[in-house]
């Protein structure tokens, strides 16, 4: 059962803040269909997952990220 790697929160480990302008890091947490990936899969902690969701939505509003894939 312990074959899976224990994932750590990217933002906690590197002491980073979630920024809606930084699309390069945000892209790590969305899939091909531009959907927000669950924290369970990416290993992001609950506190940062909430920040991440709002950040992705904000960058969608400002057309930095698209809401759908073409």
């Amino acid at each position, binding site marked *: 059962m312990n074959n899976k790697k224990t994932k750590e929160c990217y933002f906690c*480990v*590197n*002491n980073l803040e979630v920024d*809606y*302008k930084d699309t390069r890091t945000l892209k790590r947490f969305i899939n091909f269909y531009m959907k927000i990936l669950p924290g369970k899969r990416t290993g992001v902690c609950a506190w940062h997952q909430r920040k991440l969701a709002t950040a992705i939505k*904000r960058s*969608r*509003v*400002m*057309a*930095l*990220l*698209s*809401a759908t894939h073409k």
Partner: protein
Amino acid sequence: MSKTKKSTIGHYEMLFIMPNKFTEDEAKTVIEKVEKTIADGSGQITSREYWGKKKLAYEIKHNSYGYYSLCEFDLEKNALAAIDQSLRLSTDVLRHQIIIKKSKTEEELAHDKKINEKIVAKKAEEEKEAKLKEKKQADTPEATPKAAPKKEKRTDMKDLDEKLEGILSAKDLI
């Protein structure tokens, strides 16, 4: 919680997009206009950043390109709605987004520094350990495979010799 105790000035960050119909110089005049509206509302601009022409992730009012500009400002909370409204009505700005930005206190900054130092130290340690492991791995597997096949070969040869001798002697007997 009395309202008078809270500060009436907030720190905000605004990102806005100007349409592609402008040239680079015209876009910059639009930025000046926007900054003027903030200044008229008794706001103080603390930092500004011009991103330049960028491709939009999707078309906004038939524009596939736009000029991005970012600015931070301190403003009275009551005056924010008016600026928001004026930007929404203006045709010079395609889209804008105002966000409350928390400026960090000195304690928080010091705390961040400590954590960052810890992270750097941890990474350095991990690298050292990884290097040591690599060295160990480089030492051990090279020693064993080199020794093992040679021995096997030797034993093989010896076995073969013995077998051959056995066969030869058997043939002789027949």
